[in-house]
């Protein structure tokens, strides 16, 4: 059946199947709303939360945390990645430290960050940036190391200075690797923000889930989960889109 080949059609079908089985399941089972609300109720709850509640505000808070966290984490990952790839000694020294730091689950560190930096936005931004930091760093170092030696020799034989090598050789050669790291990190960072908000916050989607859960407002919890999934998807495809524009030569 050739029409299934189109991904848009396939995804639409998947969503329709999921929604209708959800609907049938709740219609047949007649579960209480605080255990499993049906899609219609969740949609309704979403609308009232958006119009009468402060859903949009909480979403914008989380969006801001993720965006700022991504920028901060990426910025430091790029700088340390460049330095690590330039100095073998620094790399040998720091690699085990970085790997060890990665072995500590961020969920365990997040409470500490909240104790140290307070329940405000900054501690969530930090959680997000720590999450994005490692995948971007690892990929940027791998990218910088993949630059062919002969191209480096060519640049040196043309007396290229450090900045010229960076702009004309190292950045373009590393971009595909960078985007690989961004794709991994971007979706994880949404999780990071929500985990941070769970642990201590007075705004954001994670905070709102906590409140709704306390009030047995399961419909709102599910609405927010769907929003988070869509948010992560949009973020992922945004990275893919930017990659498509900037790394056109890879095809």
């Amino acid at each position, binding site marked *: 059946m050739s029409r299934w080949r189109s991904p848009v059609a396939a995804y639409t079908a998947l969503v329709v199947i999921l929604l209708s089985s959800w609907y049938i399941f709740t219609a047949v089972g007649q579960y209480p709303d605080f255990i499993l609300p049906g899609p219609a109720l969740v949609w309704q709850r979403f609308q009232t939360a958006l119009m009468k509640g402060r859903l949009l505000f909480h979403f914008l808070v989380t969006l801001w945390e993720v965006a700022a966290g991504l920028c901060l984490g990426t910025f430091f990952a790029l700088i340390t990645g460049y330095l690590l790839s330039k100095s073998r000694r620094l790399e040998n020294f720091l690699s085990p430290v970085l790997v060890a730091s990665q072995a500590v689950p961020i969920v365990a560190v997040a409470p500490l960050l909240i104790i140290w930096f307070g329940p405000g936005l900054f501690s969530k931004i930090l959680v997000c940036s720590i999450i994005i930091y490692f995948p971007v760093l690892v990929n940027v170092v791998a990218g910088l190391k993949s630059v*062919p030696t*002969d*191209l480096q*020799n*060519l*640049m*040196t*034989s*043309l*007396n*290229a200075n450090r900045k*010229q090598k960076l702009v*004309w*050789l190292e950045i*373009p*050669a590393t*971009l595909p690797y960078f985007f690989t790291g961004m794709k991994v990190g971007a979706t994880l960072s949404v999780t990071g923000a929500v985990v941070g908000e769970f642990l201590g916050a007075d705004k954001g989607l994670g905070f709102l889930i906590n409140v709704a859960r306390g009030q047995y407002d399961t419909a709102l919890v599910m609405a927010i989960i769907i929003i988070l999934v869509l948010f992560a998807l949009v973020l992922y495809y945004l990275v893919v889109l930017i990659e498509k524009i900037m*790394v056109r*030569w890879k095809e």
Partner: protein
Amino acid sequence: MPQIRVVDVSHSFHTEQGDFPVLKPLDFIIEREQFLSILGPSGCGKTTLLKILAGLIQPSAGGIQHEIDGEAVDDLRVGMMFQQANLMPWRTIVENVLLPLQLKTPRLHRSVMVARAISILETVGLCGYENMRINEISGGMAQRVALARAMIHDPQLLLLDEPFGSLDALTRESMGEELLRVWQTHKKTVVMVTHSVSEAILLSDRVIVFSRRPSSIVLDIEIKLPRPREAGIRYSAEFSEYSAMIHTSIAQ
């Protein structure tokens, strides 16, 4: 045009297993506009010598002196070509060719760079291909692009490291003839490493043969075939004599 003196250059690499001598002291002069070919077994240090000439490696002892019209200069404009075309896949053909201009004369207007790149692409027979991507072209075309890039900034010294080594035999022969044609119109001092004796004789004014590592020169001859040369000269008697001489020296 420069004259290059290789003054008592020797080189060892320092490895974990200790010193690794590659080049025994070398002492020779490369005349201006000379086309010099270097032959020798794999691993004897040909690439190392080219890197020393390009200033990429500091030799363990001795040094390179450049002279232009009798005056010593520190730096030469160098063009390099490697066994692999070594192009940047994120650039189009014309953008690859104009890279040396971007680095050497960044203030030149972009349209001037493009025009120069296109005109040099014409001389290597790539007219009309300028906007193609690197992954769309064949190995032979990629080497032509690499040659155009090595020539665009009008280098005073052209260093070619087995430039056609990765090509099939037929493409390789035609590329050799192409290089001969280009060199005869834009004379430059050239040092070329090659494994092909006939390519070396066809193109060169002079051929140097290295021994096994640690290397020294086992043969240094001038190729006195008349210029301009054509591919047909391969079938002449003198050509076979040179060929026999070089082959014997390599076999030693």
